[in-house]
């Protein structure tokens, strides 16, 4: 590794660990019209600098799902996109629709002030880099960065002008830490909630929960889930915000169980040998 590439790595690491730099993908979905192009939807997703954006566009004859990632490098940024496309290509002899599936990757380099035009359904004949396929929408994307202290959770704002269109926009953020709230439940009695911030793959921590005067000590640690089995889920990072809580008893190697879930404030339960039930709720941590 030469001195230039080493300094490049340092710059990227410094940017990723910078003082709360936040990335925003600002998009507009535009459809060609007879007079002027029409905006079908507009929105923005934001998150830490390593946030991705998942975009879904569906028509009667095609569906495009894409995951966009950004690699910042000084004043320039590399925008990459993994596309999964399904196209209706005809009908079978029994009259059922036939779809073809296509997976590919696109990448461009741009500056922060540039606007990228994404033609998700292709550019058609002779339209190399110029115009979309006839009648098909396109997407205008602007990348912005700003300094925002310690806020790690993603944010989404989306305005669907034409509700008959199937357009979706999601932020994809891999949490670096998670807020886990634990309760012990037995019948209609619930222990006091115990909230802890956990970092994936860090050493286990001891926690104590008290229910009806009886203390229960557990060893908990946060892990990432196993990689998704399907190519589609891996490419679109559907499991990006899933974390798993491994629960064990002190001095016992075999875990009592593992609870996996998204950071969406939904309680998930794990029965314990004592007859109690452990309820774990995963949430995005507060700003640091």
């Amino acid at each position: 590794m030469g001195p230039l590439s080493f300094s490049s790595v340092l710059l990227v690491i410094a940017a990723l660990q910078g003082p709360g730099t936040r990335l925003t993908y600002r998009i507009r979905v535009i459809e060609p019209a007879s007079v002027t192009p029409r905006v079908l939807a507009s929105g923005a997703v934001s998150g830490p600098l390593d946030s991705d954006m998942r975009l879904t566009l569906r028509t009667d004859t095609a569906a495009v799902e894409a995951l966009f990632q950004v690699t910042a490098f000084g004043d320039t940024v590399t925008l990459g996109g993994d596309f999964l496309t399904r196209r209706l290509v005809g009908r079978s002899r029994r009259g059922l629709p036939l779809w073809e599936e296509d997976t590919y990757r696109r990448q461009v380099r741009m500056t922060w002030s540039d606007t990228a035009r994404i033609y998700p359904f292709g550019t058609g004949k002779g339209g190399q880099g110029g115009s979309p396929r006839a009648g098909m929408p396109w997407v205008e994307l602007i990348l912005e960065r700003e300094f925002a202290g310690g806020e790690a959770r993603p944010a989404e704002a989306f305005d669907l002008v034409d509700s008959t269109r199937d357009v979706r926009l999601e932020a994809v953020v891999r949490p670096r830490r998670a807020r886990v709230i634990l309760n012990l439940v037995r019948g209609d009695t619930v222990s006091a909630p115990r909230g802890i911030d956990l970092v994936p793959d860090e050493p286990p921590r001891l926690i104590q929960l008290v229910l009806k005067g009886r203390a229960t000590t557990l060893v908990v640690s946060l892990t990432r889930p196993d990689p998704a089995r399907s190519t589609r889920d891996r490419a679109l990072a559907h499991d990006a915000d899933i974390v798993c809580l491994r629960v064990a008893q002190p001095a016992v190697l075999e875990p009592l169980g593992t609870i996996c879930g998204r950071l969406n404030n939904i309680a998930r339960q794990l029965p314990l040998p004592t007859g109690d039930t452990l309820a774990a709720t995963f949430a995005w941590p507060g700003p640091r």
Partner: protein
Amino acid sequence: MADSTHEQWLAQIDAELDGELSLVERAALAKHLATCGHCAGARASHLEVRVALARSAGNPHAFVVPRPTIRAGTLALWVVVALATGLVGGWFASHRWGGPGGGSTLEETRGTIVVQ
């Protein structure tokens, strides 16, 4: 044959009785005979002469207009040629343009990112 003269129609009648007219020409002549009494009479006279000649030559049957014939072997050959041509053409068209997903090339249907 709308501008044909009467002599030309008579020649056509002779040719018809000799079996030298094509199907189209015979149809045109029949159409003309239906409207031209003079020609219809001339045709009847020609037929009578031919029948008389045939009988005097010992042929008891009236004159029969010979019709063009297609030999079975020739017909079978052309049927085989037509079927083979259709099969080869169909195979080539299916190979070149057939199957689902035809039309534009794959790259034309794939997404593109352009920086403005």
